[in-house]
């Protein structure tokens, strides 16, 4: 299946001899207007791929930072259709930055896989990560994606066997999301050397670019991870800036703070080997 924007982006990043910065923010946290500014700040400060979180009441794979982000977003009344509208607004201005919708299966299932696929394609979404929809259960979603250029992006961990990675890669495209540490988002960081071999195996078996995430917060950590991966995912650290700005009573500082962190991470990846 063609995955033009994502593939094009990895080609570009590879040509520049570096790893991609994959950044995550929660849509509607604390409101959609701020999220739009944050998306632009990410793009303007070197984020290569953007994951846009869709809030869910029961985010069982997420640590406290993203849980709270989801709650802030739900409190503001964000619906899945709002997340898609936000993507569409961003896409109208930016034709190149891949947008990945990340969330949980139920809101998508409830909307209807085909209705979602059509709306996501129209909004310019390039891929989805639905963390609680394993390869065994996503054939209906993939059928709905069949006529669109939307990638199913799946997760692997250091405990995933080669056999399982092959299964995970079947029908997946875009990239493979490698979860560096056992646990939830925002938990402790992994030593790149400990997972180097696992990432190499995952790349070989899946034939996809491998992006490593979970526990990466700083430029230094990102640069270290870049040595072994095609991309580095940073989520909770961005989301924490939303919380910190809100706690300081400075909602207008959210987008600039996110931009500053993106610039730091992106700079580190560009100067890493």
């Amino acid at each position, binding site marked *: 299946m063609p995955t033009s924007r994502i593939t094009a982006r990895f080609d570009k990043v590879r040509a520049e001899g570096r790893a991609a910065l994959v950044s995550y923010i929660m849509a509607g946290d604390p409101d959609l207007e701020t999220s739009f500014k944050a998306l632009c700040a990410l793009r303007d400060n070197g984020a290569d791929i953007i994951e846009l979180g869709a809030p869910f009441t029961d985010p069982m794979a997420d640590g*406290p930072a993203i*849980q709270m982000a989801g709650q802030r977003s739900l409190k503001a009344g964000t619906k899945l259709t709002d997340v898609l509208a936000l993507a569409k607004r961003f896409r109208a201005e930016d034709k190149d930055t891949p947008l990945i919708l990340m969330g949980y299966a*139920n809101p998508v299932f409830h909307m209807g896989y085909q209705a979602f696929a059509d709306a996501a394609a129209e909004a310019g979404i390039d891929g989805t990560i639905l963390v609680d929809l394993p390869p065994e259960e996503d054939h209906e979603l993939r059928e709905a994606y069949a006529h669109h250029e939307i990638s199913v992006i799946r997760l692997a961990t250091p405990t995933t066997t080669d056999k399982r990675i092959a299964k995970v890669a079947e029908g997946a495209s875009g990239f493979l999301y490698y979860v560096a540490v056992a646990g939830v988002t925002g938990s402790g960081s992994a030593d790149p050397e400990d997972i180097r071999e696992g990432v190499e195996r995952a790349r070989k078996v899946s034939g996809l670019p491998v992006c490593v995430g979970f526990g990466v917060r700083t430029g230094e950590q990102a640069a270290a991870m870049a040595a072994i991966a095609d991309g580095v995912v940073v989520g909770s650290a961005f989301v924490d800036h939303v919380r910190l700005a809100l706690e300081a009573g400075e909602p207008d500082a959210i987008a600039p703070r996110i931009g500053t962190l993106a610039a730091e991470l992106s700079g580190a990846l560009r100067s890493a080997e």
Partner: protein
Amino acid sequence: MPLILELEDEYRKAKRDPEFAAQMDDLWRNYVGRPSPLYHAERISEHFGGPKIYFKRDELNHTGAHKINNCLGQVLLAMRMGKKRIIAETGAGQHGVATATVCARFGLKCVVFMGATDVERQKPNVFRMKMLGAEIVPVSSGTGTLKDAMNEALRDWVTNVHDTFYVIGTAAGPHPYPELVRDFQSVIGEEAKRQLQEREGRLPDAVMACIGGGSNAIGLFHPFIEDEGVRLIGVEASGHGIETGQHAAALNGGKPGILHGNKTYLLQTDDGQIIDAHSISAGLDYPGIGPEHAFLRDTGRAEYLTCTDKEALEGFQLCTRLEGIIPALEPAHAIARLGDVCETMDKDQILIMNLCGRGDKDIFSVAEHLGMEI
């Protein structure tokens, strides 16, 4: 996924191992007190003037409910897998107490996740679990109830999977849990079937149980599914009434969805967000329902009725006064619907209702609802 596939593998092996069966049988008999009696509830039968009503007395089990049937099975599996740390979620605390009990019996570390609001309203069970050596983790994420406790337990499990086993108490969660729970709880229906055969020489005409996630009901129903003449009747908690939106009736008031690794009926908004369940009985307070019940309902094999908080309180008092048995608020929901079901049956027919828990834990909240002081 790898961790639940590993669990499934181990379960298949255990199922074929006669030693596993012998160990379960011994513990059921001598630790839990199985088989639980099948009791002819004469005065309740007379009261409704319909079929002969039998109670399956699972409230007489050690720890006071059916929950321990499944805990024993899962903890034995955990030990076969070499896991030393057991985690569980609990709402009312019954599953937590049963898990803590079995962990004490086998010297395993036990951590129980419990919604912060439930920790407050279920103090006696929190104390029991602590006495049994369990660590209680109050969960305040989300809305601080059973589903959030389950989320937190899942988060702990993926973080500590190398040494940890997650004992799920209800017939929901990711495969193979619904199957595991059903199989371990099926001892209820198997015994009832055998006991009624001995007593009456026949099958019942109907079997009936309350439903939250559905573990006691599926345990009673499962051995009768192939017996087409036997009606399977579940009773969901409709709280303040389905029309108020404050209820726990996923089948009667929910829509299909995906949560906690299974596709089933869920209480949810138009945007697919999960709605908190409400029931007077914390044990029925779950926004989903075991996927097998969803299947039995869709195929028409089982019937699912509802019962409000108020009706359950009446059922609670009726059973207490007529039979000298204080039921838990959970089975009180089934008791309260007996009248309607009896009207559809003849005098020479037989109904078995699972009395899945005793009411000691509920006396404080019942007193409060009845405006009495203890």
